[in-house]
């Protein structure tokens, strides 16, 4: 413990050094995203609330009720009843998804052989009503406006837009 160390301790070099760092943070640009006011854009792979896509030819869902998604689902949250239409097409009579059970793993989207079920960019899922978590076929079809553009269907018009903010890039936005 030399004299230099004692002097350094006496004038609080170590603490002042730390304070200089927080001091720079004090004046730097802030990274806070004030959430309800401004929202971040999700990435194309983001796994949000599900949607069923419509087949533009028939106007009905693309789903053929093959049960793959219901089978692969680790939390067993998809319930499908299939039927055959008069034209001979396999078709889900009911397609229910229990969002309260869903763990958003994305396996249903991955295994779907006709790209009917997709995960969208909707992530604000809180609700006061438990019934809102029971997604029927109609709700899932209506949600396809929020689907990511990159999936295999063309994006439907009228997707809602909010005040969005770009992601901060490390080392760029600040300082």
């Amino acid at each position, binding site marked *: 413990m030399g004299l230099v160390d004692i002097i350094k301790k006496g004038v609080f070099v170590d*603490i002042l050094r*730390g*304070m200089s*760092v*927080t*001091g720079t*943070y*004090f*004046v*730097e640009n*802030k*990274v*806070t995203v*004030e959430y309800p006011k401004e929202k971040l854009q999700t990435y194309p792979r983001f796994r949000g609330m599900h949607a069923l896509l419509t087949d533009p030819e028939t106007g009905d869902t693309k789903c053929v009720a093959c049960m793959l998604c219901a089978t692969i689902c680790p939390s067993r949250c998809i319930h499908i009843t299939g039927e055959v239409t008069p034209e001979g097409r396999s078709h889900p009579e009911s397609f229910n998804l229990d969002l309260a059970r869903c763990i958003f793993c994305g396996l249903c989207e991955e295994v779907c052989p006709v790209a009917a079920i997709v995960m969208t960019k909707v992530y604000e899922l809180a609700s006061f009503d438990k019934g809102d978590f029971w997604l029927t076929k109609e709700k899932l079809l209506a949600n396809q406006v929020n689907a990511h553009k990159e999936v295999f269907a063309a994006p439907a018009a009228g997707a809602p837009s909010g005040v969005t903010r770009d992601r901060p890039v490390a080392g760029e936005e600040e300082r």
Partner: protein
Amino acid sequence: MSDPVAQLIFLIVKAILMPVLIITFVAFVIYFERKFAGFFAGRVGPTYLGPWGSLQSFGDIIKLLSKEDVTPLRADKLVFKMAPYIAFIPVFAVIAVLPFGPVGGGPNLFGHRFDYVIANFDAGVVLLLAMGALSVYGVVLAGWSSNSNYSLLGGLRAGAQMISYELAMGFSVVGVVLMAGSLNFVDIVNGQAGNFWEWYFIPQVVGGLVFFIASIAELNRTPFDLAEAEQELVAGHLTEYSGMRWGMFYFAEYVNLVVISAIVSTLYFGGWRAPLTVLDFIPGPIWLFLKMIAFIFLYMWVRWTIIRYRYNQLMSIGWKVLLPLSLANLVVTAIVVSLQG
């Protein structure tokens, strides 16, 4: 209007105005603490209530008032309810003896003499130390009466900590008292008349540092916030408090912050005096206010940067480092003052 009557009226006005001003100021200090805590962490702090969130403290008060006031089943109810007041009231008493402008001299307001101090009290420093010691009781009693292990530990820590730091604080103040030759804050400020190199922080640099560190301990702020050490003791002595009772402790803490920063400026940084005599045209209270703000900011900066000492380390610093340092400072000051005098 005779002079005594005018003085009485002035006294009443000052006695009402000062606490009100301090409380309003404290509300904003709390807001700035939260805002700056955010800034130091790269966040933005409160933004919603009022412009830039500036009314946040008032929102807090409304929230605290509307919350349920829970008293633990097996708490010592009388003590439990008294403790916040015991913590709250003594800190105000010190305000009375702090000068915030020139005292004495000729008539300066409506043809009468207006003293910028509530009480020109000859033993002001003693009052400061006594009241500081009293406010510990609030913490200790709160810890004891809550009937919770965490509270008890917090109260014990607070008691031990304040006693040991009170000593170092007292001895370091004596250096200033010796230099000023008086226990009166007014005389202490008058002793620092002149430019900023006449202030006591240069001859009393060691005492000033000790006083500053001890004052952080007195304020219960990081790195000495062991009494309520959130990460260890949940909230220490405040664990069982809720609603406005908790709010009073919280408020007392910030009143204390304001008062202590005023005291540091008064003892070592010339009080209401301007740093250069050419700047004397700016009134004294403004200088005091600016100095207080600077110290409050410094306290915040320290709090949001560095981490907490452990209990035994705190005690060993208090007894093994700060106390000997302040004693040495006292001896040296005494020798120098007696040689000069």
